[in-house]
């Protein structure tokens, strides 16, 4: 895998070569996170999960080709809702999807503090925010590598299953898939940013995993209570957020009660939350002393 990454096209202009200001270390650290993560067993464990679950879900999904190919509104609704349900089951539900994200990101800072290798970074001319952002973006890169094949699989398996031709006007086109990936990554980035923050605060991988899972469990419990209490807007639930955003991305679905401006606000908030969590992580890393 690292050989494939090395072969990827790289920006090679003089400006990037000689740039010596803030941020130059972020891609260096991110690249290191990706290349070291893909050598680890847990990456392959996650990869198995992200490939197997869509396959299993697909086996039990019974959308008939005849319904969708009829092109009626209700048929499209069924098809796209089925895809949405798969996304939720794989990436968003409080199950292995979230747990694996926590496990992938938990030792990015804590692991380095525990093994003592954080000292190597802290004794080079690197800003603490470059360390945090590099680790975060590298981690998101790893997650993209995990997400992308599953999304492509879901897309093409549905095309095949529904006897549609690419790009299918019924099920979704490439831009829909890309947008879906971005929204999923934004939602996943909240979990990764929170885990990095807790990893920085506790500086122990086990504590980072336990506290992140506890935080996700608490969020899930509160959001369930909100649903039970009949709350219309459940911003704490990733599933609700996906329900609210995805219909705007799948062109033909009726959106929930939010306007397009609301969609941009949502995405803005989804960017702000990881930003805030990472800022807290930077503050903690800055203040951490080498005892």
């Amino acid at each position: 895998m690292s050989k494939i990454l090395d072969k990827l096209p790289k920006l090679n202009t003089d400006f990037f070569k000689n740039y010596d200001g803030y941020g130059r270390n972020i891609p260096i650290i991110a690249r290191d996170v990706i290349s070291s993560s893909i050598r680890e067993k847990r990456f392959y464990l996650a990869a198995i999960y992200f490939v197997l679950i869509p396959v299993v879900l697909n086996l039990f999904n019974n959308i008939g080709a005849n319904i969708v190919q009829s092109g009626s509104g209700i048929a499209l609704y069924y098809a796209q809702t089925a895809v949405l349900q798969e996304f939720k089951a794989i990436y968003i539900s409080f199950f292995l999807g979230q747990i694996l994200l926590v496990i992938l990101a938990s030792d990015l800072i804590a692991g380095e503090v525990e093994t003592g290798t954080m000292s190597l970074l802290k004794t080079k001319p690197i800003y603490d925010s470059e360390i945090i952002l590099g680790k975060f973006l590298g981690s998101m890169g790893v997650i993209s590598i995990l997400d992308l094949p599953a999304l492509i699989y879901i897309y093409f398996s549905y095309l095949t299953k529904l006897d549609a031709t690419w790009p299918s006007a019924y099920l979704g086109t490439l831009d829909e898939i890309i947008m879906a990936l971005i929204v999923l990554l934004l939602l996943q980035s909240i979990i990764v940013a929170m885990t990095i923050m807790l990893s920085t605060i506790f500086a122990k991988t086990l504590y980072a995993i336990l506290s992140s899972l506890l935080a996700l469990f608490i969020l899930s419990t509160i959001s369930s209570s909100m649903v039970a209490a009949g709350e219309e807007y459940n911003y704490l639930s990733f599933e609700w957020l996906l329900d609210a955003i995805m219909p705007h991305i799948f062109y033909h679905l009726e959106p929930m009660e939010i306007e397009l401006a609301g969609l941009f606000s949502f995405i803005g908030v989804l960017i702000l939350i990881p930003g805030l969590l990472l800022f807290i992580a930077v503050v903690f890393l800055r203040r951490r002393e080498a005892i």
Partner: protein
Amino acid sequence: MEEKIMNDYVVQIRNLSKFMGQKPIVLDMSLDIPRGTLFGLLGPNGAGKTTSIRLMTGRLRPTSGSVDLLGLSPWRDRVELFKKVGYLAQNPSFPKDSTVIKFTTYMAKLRGFNRQEALLEARHQLSQVGLERFEHSIVGKLSGGEQQRLGFANCLIGSPEILILDEPTSSLDPEGRVYVMELIAKLAKDNNQTVIVSSHILPEIQRMTNHIAIMSEGRVLVSGNMRELTKNIFDREYEVETSHPKELSDILIEEGYKVVLDNSTIVVDVGTRLRQIWRDLPKICNDNNFELRSFTPMRDSLENLFLKYVSQRELKVEHRGVEL
């Protein structure tokens, strides 16, 4: 003029203290380290050497006082500082799965080198420390000595103005120690760098450095040029080797010296009669036809200096404890 004086010192520490909870680890430390020196921070275990070095490198925040390293505050200006400083921690840790060249190149990139330059710099520094043969070895499989050399290579990347080395020989075998000591002396000579090195092993400090500070219980007891500091330090106990140890020992006792005869070696406590023993001993041997084979101090001057200050300090603390 003031600027010139400032420039003559690469490190200026004033009234620096660091407490861990209520416990003082470094207390009211003041120290100046001149540019271009090989500076040894000497002290027994627990003296506060590592904490002082961590304060100098911004790895710890001072409780009070100030550290000025090349005009920068290490805690506040860590990023600027490490463009000019190379640091080797005591027992450094490395990513175990990486190869030597990959790790060193990564560190060179983080030091500011671009992709091509980083590889060249990594190879250059690995050859400086004699690790060029191990380029493709896995870091985790290197021996302790080789890992220490790797730490050196990492700390030398970018030819920093100052090298700060915390107990660089602590985890090494005797051969490794000699290699590292020679390497430090060579680097300082070739690159005209200021090297600050901590150790609790006196002969190592004596061999590696030309300026020292002796620390005990978080305080700097004495600092300065080693030759100046040891100029007037003499040992009380001397070892004498002669052809007639028993006979010479009896005569010295008659003369009023405190003597211990250990097999064929005589240990003489000269007390305050240092000048006199230099006159008496050759005369006695000459008169009695004894062969005087050697007459050497039991400890060297640095050891005496160290004992003088550290034991004085311990006595003071003990005395204060009784008063309390």
